[in-house]
Every structure is written in structure tokens, then in C-alpha cells.
């Protein structure tokens, strides 16, 4: 099962439409996915929880998106690539640790990380290193897209199969 069971293309379209519309709250439910988009202050009854964590409490009003699925929620995507060239394509993809080892986000200590949140990657882009007994194993993105979440920190012990990154696929360059 993919990490995020929601069609982001649909989501983006909904948000774009709502931007222009006059509304304070929009609720949408389909299957086990429920979507709540609000403008302005959060109503008191839904304080706390995941909504509060991502909400901007003060105006200017910006849509706050809370997507509830069985998978982790995405960080607000901030693609550096222009919108036209990174049309979201289908559900997001998770990069799993192919083996147990220590996670390294940078090629060498002190160097910038292989990828940052919001970076554009290709299928063969190296996203991190997993070291096991001093043997370095490069891990590639496996899909072209935008890095929308990083789940491990430098030096962490990551287990076989553990989620490392979430990538929002886009058309390859």
C-alpha cells in the first residue's frame, strides 16, 4: 500500500478552486480519506491534534489542509521547481531502508545533505547512505518527484523496511 492514500492531483485542484471561493470551512470524505480545509482561525472544538500543529492561527487567511489517511500526513509541499513542470502524478511513494544500518543524510560530515525537503529528485538520485559495519550503501529515490517528507535523522539506526523519505511523484524531466 502506498504511504499516502489520497490523490494529490485531486487535492491540488480542490485547493486551487477553493482559493477563489468564499468559504470558511470545507469538508470532504471519500472512503477512508477525509479532508478538511479551513480559512482563518480554527474553531475552538477542534483545537489540539494534528490540525492545530499545521495551522497558521492568524490572518491573512491561508487554507489549512488536514488530510487524514492511514498514512503519515505530508508536510506542506513547497516545490522549488515551478508549478508547471511539476504536476503531481498519483499517490506519493515511500523510500524504505533496504537494509538495517546507520542513516546518513550527507555524503560526508559537514557537507550539505544529498536531498532536502522540497527538492526535486530523479529515480536514480542518491537520497542517503546506510552504513552497516563501515560499508556504505547508497539509497536511490526510485521515482522522480519532490521530497515531501524526511523520516530519519543523521546517524539514526534504521531498520530493514523502515520509511526514510516520502516522494511526491512528478513527470520525469
Amino acid at each position: 500500500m502506498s504511504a499516502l492514500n489520497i490523490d494529490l492531483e485531486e487535492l491540488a485542484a480542490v485547493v486551487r478552486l477553493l482559493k477563489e471561493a468564499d468559504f470558511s470551512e470545507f469538508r470532504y470524505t471519500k472512503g477512508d480519506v477525509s479532508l478538511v480545509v479551513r480559512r482563518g482561525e480554527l474553531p475552538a472544538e477542534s483545537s489540539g491534534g494534528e490540525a492545530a500543529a499545521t495551522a497558521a492561527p492568524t490572518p491573512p487567511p491561508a487554507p489549512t489542509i488536514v488530510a487524514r489517511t492511514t498514512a503519515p500526513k505530508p508536510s506542506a509541499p513547497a516545490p522549488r521547481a515551478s508549478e508547471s513542470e511539476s504536476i503531481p502524478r498519483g499517490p506519493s511513494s515511500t523510500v524504505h531502508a533496504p537494509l538495517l544500518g546507520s542513516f546518513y543524510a550527507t555524503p560526508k560530515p559537514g557537507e550539505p545533505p544529498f536531498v532536502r525537503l522540497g527538492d526535486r529528485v530523479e529515480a536514480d538520485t542518491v537520497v542517503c547512505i546506510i552504513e552497516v559495519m563501515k560499508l556504505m550503501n547508497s539509497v536511490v529515490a526510485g521515482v522522480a518527484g519532490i521530497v515531501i517528507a524526511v523520516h530519519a535523522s543523521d546517524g539514526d539506526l534504521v531498520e530493514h523496511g523502515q520509511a526514510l523519505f516520502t516522494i511526491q511523484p512528478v513527470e520525469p524531466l
Partner: protein
Amino acid sequence: MSARRIFVANRGEIAVRVIDACQRLGIETVLGVSAADKQTLGAMRATRAVTLGGARSTESYLNQPAIVHAAMSTGCAAVHPGYGFLSERADFARLCEENGLIFIGATPEQLETLGDKLSARAFAQSVGVPVSPGGPTKTLDEAKALAIEVGYPLLVKAAFGGGGRGMKLVERADDLNEAWSVASSEAASSFGDGTVFLERFVRAAKHIEVQILGDRHGGCLQLGERECSLQFRYQKILEEAPSSSLNAADREKLHSYALRIANGLKYQGLGTVEFLYDVAKRDIWFLEVNPRVQVEHPVTEAVTGVDLVREQILVAFGEPLRLAQSDIRLEGHAVELRLTAQNPANGLKPSPGRLTKWRPSPIGGVRWDSHMYEGYLFPPYYDALMAKIIAFGQNRETALLRAGQAVDRLEVAGPITNATLLKQLLATQAVIENSVTTQWLEEQFARGALP
């Protein structure tokens, strides 16, 4: 003791057994599991579980770099290898040592000596322990000469390389030529050495083994013997302590042989010295040493009252033995049955699957060493052991009776188990009077007398 955390590099019931022993010592545990074993009882009982790799053992339970890396990253001071998997691997013991981890087992040197059949036999002989007649032969002429000494029937097998691979039974001198030549060329192509080992084949032998325990300061103990003659293709099914086949003189002889080996090696940790015992001729022959905790260790625990895994952990951390030989006193009799997910009606074929019912019988004097629980998905990747049912009684009769009741009242559904075979065995005269030898069960199957 400074160890606060131990890495458990195994699965199944023995992982649970080691975790229990650690908990009683106040030691935290990290269990390395395969991707197929995340929902095991061991994973739930351990302080923490980490996924080492895929379901295949080579990617997980035999994956030395992943295990050592995981043990170090999680702050473990030692690694317990259980039995099977990496428990007898000198290279793994060495890798642990090189990375500052205590390997809970014998030293790499001891594992090397004992891991090779020729060097283990040579060592036994060097300390005056009799080995079965036989030896390595490089040419057919050598083999012919040795065969006259050894006598028929005899076994020919590759001298190097393990398992029962290429083992052939030779009944008559006329058949030696061909069997030896085939074994030699197989050995040469498989193991790069055409040396062939000749050994007398004892048809009516009992399998009797002695538990040993040694510390790092030269202290060694023997904790009595176990008999495991009831086997199916070298897989033990019923084990007991003490053996009812030995007279006092032979028992003493057997124990002293085991101690000679333990002392000669300055053996460290838990080990089992295995012997073949020819009841008719009263011959005792050294077979091999298993340098690890043995599956059937609970029968020894039942009659000695010693927690062997606890002692094994303590000596690995350098503690001197807390027991003297005179402290080891045997009481009563214990029988262990191996309940497996194997179908007796189908040649003991493995039968994995979802365990929909698991109700071990609550009977006094019976211990269940098991990793089963209702809803557990018994995976097809590993061995078929579901539980060890260990029954204790003041005498053998009582222990067998309790073992029988425990199997009768077990409620299990899902995988097909060997419970029906265990019940049949306990009702068989040869088992009741303990006249079985290591080939007995296979002969019963071949004749159609069982199951």
C-alpha cells in the same frame, strides 16, 4: 555485573527463553528479527525489537554485519546466539569480539576445534576419550585396510564439509570399492578435498549426551546426562534426563569422559558432549561437542534445579562458577516432547499457517517452552518447532504419564501438529521401557507400524 543490555540473535522459543532469563537478571534485551518475525512473542517480550532484514535467514538471522551493527547501535554489551543459526560460527564469535561485544558462547578457537569432525575426534582421543572405530582415508587401499579394522557395516562420508551430505552405508566388503570412489569424487568436487572418512555404523545405539558448563577461570562442571535416542532422521523427538539405559559404572565413565573434554579445552560456556552407547556391548563412543545451549536443556534444568541459560550468561560476563561439582544433585526424572508443525500422516511434512487455537494444558509438573499464541502466523521459512513440553516426576513413569496428559489435553488448531504421533509414541511399549535406539523410529515408519 555491568551488562545492562543483551542482543538476542535468534528466534522462536529459544529467543523467548533467553529474554526470560535476561529479565530475571534485570538485563534489557534487544531482539533482532526478520521481516517475517515482527509479530512474534519474542518481539513483544523483548525490551526492543529491530528488523535485521528479509524473511530469508541469510538476510536476517545469518546476516552477521547487520546483527553486529544493530547490537552496537542499540548499546548492547553482548550477543546471545541461541542454538542453530550463528551459535557455532567461529567467524561470528570473532566478529563480535573485534567489535567489543561479548559473544555468549565458546571461544572462537574452541568453536574451530569442535566444528571440524576430524579435529574434534583427534582432540577427544588426545584426552583419552574413545571414538568410534574409523578414520580418514586418502586412497582406496588405505580404506580397504582400515575397513578390516573397523568392521562392517560402516559409513563412508566426506571428511571435510558438514551435514549428512554424501554419506553412504556400506554393508559388505564387496560394496566398499564403489561407495568409497563415489564418496571421494563427490568430496573432491564439493569440498575440494577427496579425503573420505570411514566410521563403524552402530545400528542399535543409544544417543546419550552430557551437559557441561565452564567459566573463564578454568572452572568446569558436568550436570548429568540426557538420553535422546528417539529420533527421526537425526531430529530428536523425545529427550529425557537422566538416562535409564546406563548402569552406575557406565554413567560415571560417561561423565568423566565429558569432564576430560571440558577440562582439556578449558571450555567456556554451555556445551553438550554427545556419545553413542551400545547397550549390548556397553561401548561408549564420542560423537561430537555441541558448543551452545541445546534445545533439550530444560530436562537437565528440571532434574538439577539449575537455570542453565542464566549461568551461561553469567559466565560469559566473566563471573566464576557459583556451583561446585558436589552441588549438582539430581532429583526425579524429566521428559521433553517436541511439538512441531509437522503432519505425521504425510511423512512429517511441515504444516505452517495461522494458529487459530492454542490452549496448553494446565497440568502440574509440566513446563511449556513455546513462542505460540492464538492468532500467530506460523511462518514457512524456519524450523517447525512449536513448543517443548517438559514433564517432571519423581520417577520416569510419572514424568511420562504427565507428558502424555499434557499432549492429550492440548487444544491446538491451525497448523497440523505431530501431537498424534507423540501420543502414539507414549503408548508404545518400546518407548515405555526405553528400548528404542536412534534408528528405531525410522524403521517403524518404513515398516508402516507408525504413525
